[in-house]
């Protein structure tokens, strides 16, 4: 390779990295604004000329968690954690069972039922919300953890069944037959043979279910008032009076985003198959 073409290649590499940096800058800028705003003084937050360099203060963070929302912020976070954790667990558990059933017993139309279940995932939540509200109200279950947990479980089940079915289909039937000959029962085969084999699938599914449940807003805002409300509801509830406390909102917002962000960046290689419903591996 001649010197000129090496130089040309290096130049091209720099250009590519530069372009990528511009894109990453665009992606991170709003998050940078959120985090810096939560550490700014009120004067800097409302300054017309954007304050790039500032003396950080924890006043907003302190206000957000100890004065402003007081006890309620902690209880919203706790509600989010309870709802997300339980609904994810249930969606993965019931989803794995159903996926196994669909994968192992191919009755006429089993594939179509699986497709139909997947397509419920695409339905806009806003189209469900009126009947669901009336149902929940009828059973006197408004503002309970149970309601959100069961709804998120259901919304996630479609995805969970679909993804895990793909993983179960990849397990050769001979492995199960061998276990059967060794005297395992059906339930033992499921738990002790199949479940360990689809662990990556379970991780993928759990991540996606957690993202959905943690971030979900519409059902939470309609079906809870206070006792079972999650973080997005808290953030939206102050939307009308938002002119006042930007630092505090950004602090709560940052806190609401961080757990999922860290979690998924670490496990990002599991994401693609889930995000595309198993269409791309």
């Amino acid at each position, binding site marked *: 390779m001649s010197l000129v073409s090496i130089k040309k290649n290096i130049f091209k590499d720099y250009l590519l990295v530069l372009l990528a940096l511009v894109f990453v800058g665009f*992606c991170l800028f709003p998050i940078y604004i959120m985090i810096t705003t939560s550490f700014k003084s009120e004067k800097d937050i409302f300054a017309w000329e954007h304050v790039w360099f500032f003396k950080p203060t924890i006043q907003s963070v302190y206000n957000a968690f100890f004065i402003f929302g007081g006890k309620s912020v902690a209880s919203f976070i706790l509600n989010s954690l309870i709802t997300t954790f339980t609904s994810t667990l249930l969606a993965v558990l019931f989803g794995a069972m*159903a996926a196994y059933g669909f994968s192992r017993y191919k*009755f006429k139309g089993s594939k179509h039922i699986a*497709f139909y279940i997947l397509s419920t995932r*695409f339905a806009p939540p806003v*189209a469900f919300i009126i*009947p669901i509200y*009336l149902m929940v109200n009828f059973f006197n279950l408004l503002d309970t953890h149970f309601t959100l947990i069961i709804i998120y479980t259901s919304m996630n089940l479609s995805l969970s069944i679909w993804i895990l079915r793909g993983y179960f289909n990849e397990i050769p039937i001979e492995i199960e037959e061998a276990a059967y000959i060794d005297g395992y029962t059906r339930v033992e085969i499921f738990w002790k043979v199949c479940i360990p084999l689809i662990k990556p699938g379970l991780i993928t599914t759990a991540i996606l279910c957690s993202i959905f449940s943690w971030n979900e*807003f519409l059902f939470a805002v309609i079906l809870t008032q206070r006792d079972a409300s999650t973080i997005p509801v808290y953030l939206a509830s102050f939307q009308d009076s938002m002119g006042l406390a930007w630092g505090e909102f950004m602090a709560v917002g940052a806190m609401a985003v961080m757990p999922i962000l860290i979690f998924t960046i670490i496990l990002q290689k599991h994401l693609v198959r889930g995000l595309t419903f198993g269409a*791309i591996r």
Partner: protein
Amino acid sequence: MKNYSLRTSLYFILPALVIILAINIFPIIYAVWISFQNWSLAYVRPPQYTGFYNYEDALFFDDRFINAVFVSLKFVFLAVLIEFILGFSLAFLFNQKLKALNFLRVVSLTPIMVMPVVSGLIWFYMFNENFGVLTYLVTLLGFDKPGWLTDPDIALFSIVLADVWQWTPFVMLIFFAALQSLPEYVYEAAKMDGLNKIQIFFRITLPLLKPAIWIVLILRIIDSFKMLELILMMTKGGPGGYTEVLPWYLYTTGFITLDIGYGASMAVMMLILVTILSQFFVKKIEGKN
């Protein structure tokens, strides 16, 4: 193994089936029933059967509904188009074999995970006309202060910008994964056949990316069609209905004006549309598996 009977698989399927029937299937049937009623929660009178009245009302007499449909279409078209072009090109960029790009690619996925309510919050702050950083930056470039969310000509584009920020990385991620899974030997064969770069792109890469293209298009169309949070946090459909997308109109009809019969009829129409789209999607991946 002979005992893979219907009964045993039903035991495995049952818990999921019960939940899905109760929370997904039944509400759809219930929504259809509600949509045939004249039923408002604002009055204490029982629902009254009115047949297709709500549907006729929406389709032929409600300018707000027609407006919402068009605003939704405009939003979906603009957002998906921009996300597609950007995400597609960026996937090729990140597909170059460079160590630094690997790290940058992972970092750029961040917006996908941000809670939509929080995205709305951040962009609303950045769009503020008195102290928002974007307003400030634009005036530095010598422009007038734009009414990001108050100018009828701009408001929808501002929402599109926030949506593009959140979902371009998702499009990029899918195309990147698809590019990574393309078999190397095809390219070697193409080079041996003396195809140039442009021919390789159009004759080999593009056809091989077809499934990914479908997936991106349909997932993004369906998802942006449902988008509600950005509107709620930033414009509430304003100014003057210029950003009133269908989910937002449905939301206000159901839960602010409390006309649930009418709301349900719009919900059913929306469901029909999304079902058609998603069946299309399912066919595409069915073909692949």
